[in-house]
C-alpha cells in the first residue's frame, strides 16, 4: 500500500504520450491543477482528454492545448477558449461532443463494472446517429458504452493515505465518477491526512478506486464567472 506520492511530478510519472486521460472538474471548478501543470512541464503529447470542459486559454486544460499536447478532446461543452477554437478549425484538434449526463454516466458505468448504459439523451438528434436505439416502456433510449481511461486525474478537498477522498461543494462534480473510471487514478488533494482522520461515513470516493494520491500546492482555484450582488440587494 504505497499510494502516497510526494508531488504531482512523481504522481504523473509513467503517463505516456498518447494516453487516454480523464480530468475531473466542471469549468475551472475542482480541476486537477497540479497534475495539469506537471503534464505541461513534462510535455506529454498526443493525449486524448476526457473532461466536461476544455479549460480557458490560460488555465486548466487550456494550458495543455496551448502547448499542443492534446490530440483529441472529449467533452460536453468547450466554449471560452480561443486557442481551442483555432486548433479545432485548423484541424489540429479532434473533438467529440457528448451530452453531459451521458458523459458522467458512462464514467460511472466503468466504475461500476457495467459495460454500457441506456439513456434517452440524444435520441432523435445527431448524437444518436449510428447508435443502437432500444425502446423500454414506450421510451426510446440510446445504448452508450462505458468509458474507461488509462489515467484519471481528479481533485479532492481532503484525502487520506488509503486514497479515500472527500470533495467540497460543487467542486465534486465529475471527480468521483472519473476516479472510478481510471485504470490508474491519481488524486490530488488540498489536504492529505493520516488514515483514520476522515469520518468513514463522509467519504465520497473509497480508496479502492484511487491508486496514487498527493497533496497539491499553490491552488489558484480560478473563478470563471465572478457574479456577486451588492449588499443593498
Amino acid at each position, binding site marked *: 500500500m504505497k499510494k502516497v506520492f510526494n508531488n504531482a511530478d512523481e504522481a504523473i510519472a509513467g503517463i505516456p504520450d498518447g494516453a487516454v486521460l480523464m480530468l475531473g472538474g466542471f469549468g475551472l471548478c475542482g480541476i486537477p491543477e497540479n497534475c495539469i501543470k506537471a503534464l505541461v512541464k513534462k510535455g506529454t503529447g498526443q493525449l486524448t482528454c476526457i473532461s466536461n470542459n476544455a479549460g480557458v486559454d490560460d488555465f486548466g486544460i487550456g494550458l495543455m492545448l496551448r502547448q499542443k499536447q492534446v490530440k483529441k478532446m472529449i467533452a460536453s461543452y468547450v466554449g471560452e477558449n480561443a486557442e481551442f477554437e483555432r486548433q479545432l478549425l485548423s484541424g489540429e484538434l479532434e473533438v467529440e461532443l457528448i451530452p453531459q449526463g451521458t458523459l458522467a454516466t458512462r464514467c460511472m458505468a466503468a466504475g461500476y463494472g457495467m459495460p454500457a448504459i441506456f439513456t434517452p439523451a440524444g435520441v432523435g*438528434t445527431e448524437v444518436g446517429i449510428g447508435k443502437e436505439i432500444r425502446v423500454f416502456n414506450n421510451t426510446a433510449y440510446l445504448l452508450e458504452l462505458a468509458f474507461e481511461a488509462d489515467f484519471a486525474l481528479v481533485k479532492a478537498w481532503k484525502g487520506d493515505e488509503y486514497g479515500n477522498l472527500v470533495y467540497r461543494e460543487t467542486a465534486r462534480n465529475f471527480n468521483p465518477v472519473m476516479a472510478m473510471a481510471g485504470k490508474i487514478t491519481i488524486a490530488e488533494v488540498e489536504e492529505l491526512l493520516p488514515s483514520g482522520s476522515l469520518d468513514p461515513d463522509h467519504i465520497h470516493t473509497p480508496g479502492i478506486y484511487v491508486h496514487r494520491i498527493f497533496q497539491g500546492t499553490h491552488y489558484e482555484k480560478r473563478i470563471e464567472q465572478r457574479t456577486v450582488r451588492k449588499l443593498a440587494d
Partner: protein
Amino acid sequence: MLNKNQIAQRLAKELKDGYYVNLGIGIPTLVANYIPAGLNVVLQSENGLLGMGPFPFDGEEDPDLINAGKQTITTVPGSAFFDSAMSFGMIRAGKVDLTILGAMEVSEKGDIANWKIPGKMVKGMGGAMDLVASAKNIIVAMMHTNPKGESKLLPACMLPLTGVACVKKVVTELAVLDITAGGFKLLERAPGVTVEEIMAKTAGKLIIEGEIPEMIL
C-alpha cells in the same frame, strides 16, 4: 411586449410549492428573482447542487461553489451536493418537476434546437440534451423571433435538434403558448400585444380559441 425580466416574472407563475426546478442559462436564471414569497421551490444546478441560493455578496465568492453557468453562487439551508452522475440520474429519473431553458428554435411538435448552428463554432450541448430528453415538464423561455425578425416558433426546426417532442410550453416577450397535438396553442398575450402580431410572428401552426387574455404579471 415583455422585457427579459418580465418574461422571467411570467415564468415564475409556473412554479408550484414543493417544486424542484432546473433553470437554464440566460432568461431562465432570472426566474430565481421572482419566486413568490411563501412558495418553497428548490433550485437544482446540474453540476451537483440542490438548493441554489442567490449570488454571493462581493468578497464572499467561493471558487468551489458555482452553478451550471459557472457563476459564483450561494446555497440555501437544506441544500445538498452530489456528483454529476447522480445529478443527471435524478434528472433522467424525472425527479426534477420543471425545467426552464432557452432555445434557438421550437417546433409545433415540441422539438427544440438550442445547441448548434451549422457553420458556426460548435461549443457543445452541455447538459441540455439530457435535460430535454428526461424532464417531465419543459418550458422554453426565448424571444419570439431571431435578430433577423424571423419566427423561432416553426413548423419544424431547421437547426440540428437538441430534443424531440419534449417542450410543453413556450413563454416569449409576446405570448404564452402550450404545445398541443395540434400545434402552438395561444394562451396569453403580453400587455399591449395583439393576437395579429403573434400570428404574424409565429411560423408554426397557431391555435387560437376564443378570447385570448392579456397576461397578468
